[in-house]
């Protein structure tokens, strides 16, 4: 039998009265608390998934605000100290003429975090409300969010490398600003938020039996 046909009635483990392991795919009868193959905790659906997603989401959102307001880098050169925020750093790079690098930083520290907030909120809302995007599109969106989240850490690493490298006393020195901490926290929280999301809910939603 070939499986090229796209007949919609795909039987899920839940619909068959079984539980599938999200780690190793082993299917088992209900009643086991842990997977008999890999020992992961079994849940037919993560009932608290959306709650966790929103909790981490708002935690991430809250710390994202100071990350943008406070300085990320503190550069002192010949006795003069300048602070630069995330956006300020991008603008500096453009003034230096390195537009490509400016784009990388702009994507990693502004477009990806903001896009991630929007995407996570959209995915979480789409479980309870009707949305336009098909299940498959939303699944792809979920995978993109999962994959891309960690790349936002670039800016924190850049600050660390610069601060370690540029310590020339009076001539020039770079020190990290407090925004680095809140930005790192924001990235970690949104990663937790995306990981808490149970993608199986996307596929359940259109059958009228959410969670």
């Amino acid at each position, binding site marked *: 039998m070939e499986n090229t046909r796209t007949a919609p009635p795909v039987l899920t483990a839940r619909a068959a009265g*079984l539980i599938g392991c999200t780690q190793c795919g082993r*299917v088992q009868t209900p009643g086991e608390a842990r997977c008999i193959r890999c020992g992961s905790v079994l849940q037919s659906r993560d009932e608290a998934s959306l709650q966790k997603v929103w909790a981490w989401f708002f935690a991430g959102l809250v710390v994202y605000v100071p990350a943008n307001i406070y300085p990320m880098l503190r550069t002192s050169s010949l006795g003069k100290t300048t602070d630069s925020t995330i956006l300020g750093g991008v603008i500096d790079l453009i003034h230096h003429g390195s537009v490509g690098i400016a784009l990388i930083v702009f994507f990693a520290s502004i477009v990806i975090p903001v896009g991630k907030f929007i995407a996570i909120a959209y995915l979480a809302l789409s479980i309870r409300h009707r949305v336009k995007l098909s299940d498959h599109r939303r699944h792809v969106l979920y995978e993109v969010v999962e994959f891309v989240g*960690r790349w936002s850490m670039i800016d924190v*690493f850049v600050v*660390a490398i610069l601060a*370690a*490298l540029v310590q020339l006393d009076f001539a020039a020195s770079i020190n990290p600003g407090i925004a680095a901490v809140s930005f790192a926290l924001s990235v970690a929280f949104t990663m937790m938020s995306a990981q808490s999301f149970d993608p199986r809910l996307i596929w359940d939603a259109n059958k009228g039996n959410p969670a």
Partner: protein
Amino acid sequence: MPNVTDVTVADDLPDPAKLIACPQCDALHLDADLPIGSTSRCVRCHTVLESPRQLALTRIVMLAAAALILMIAAIFFPFLELHAAGRIQRSSLLDTVMAFSTGMTAPLTLAMAALIVILPVTRFVSLIYVLAPMAFGWTPARHASRAFRIAEALRPWAMAEVFIVGVAVALVKVAGLAHLSIGPAFWAFVALVIVTVLKDNFMCRVTVWKTLEQRRPS
């Protein structure tokens, strides 16, 4: 996509042990042994279910061991050198980790150490611990399941490759200010990232779990 068929009718459900549920969307598939080199995907969401590869276990163990050695080199050799105003500022990976250690940003030191060094090393060690006995055809080591679960859970948090892109950005930022040269540790770290990516490509989570299950003494 050979040998994997979706199950559409609930009546003729076979034994659960012969089924596989898509880890992403829960769709049931018949779980047959795949030929080496082929890949099976979920019929609904197209997530890769299984992709057994020739000698995959041995290769993963080798690559993880290589990555461990490279990490040791990356930690102890100089990473970057900055020449400015007649002075040379050398910094190693450890200096980079310690960059946040003063003032309000101190908690980040721990996070940096974890993301760049500790978590990747933990992953390499636990993968070797789990897979080396498999590669030799022995029975799994004690707590192998737990070790492999930890290794998989840490996967998104081991950010060596993100760090390398960060280094590239930092290099450009400093380039105008001073002359920079790249130390041996930098290349060790680049090699480490390549090895890690190769290793993760070889690894098929479901296949590893199945192998662990088969070899488990019962």
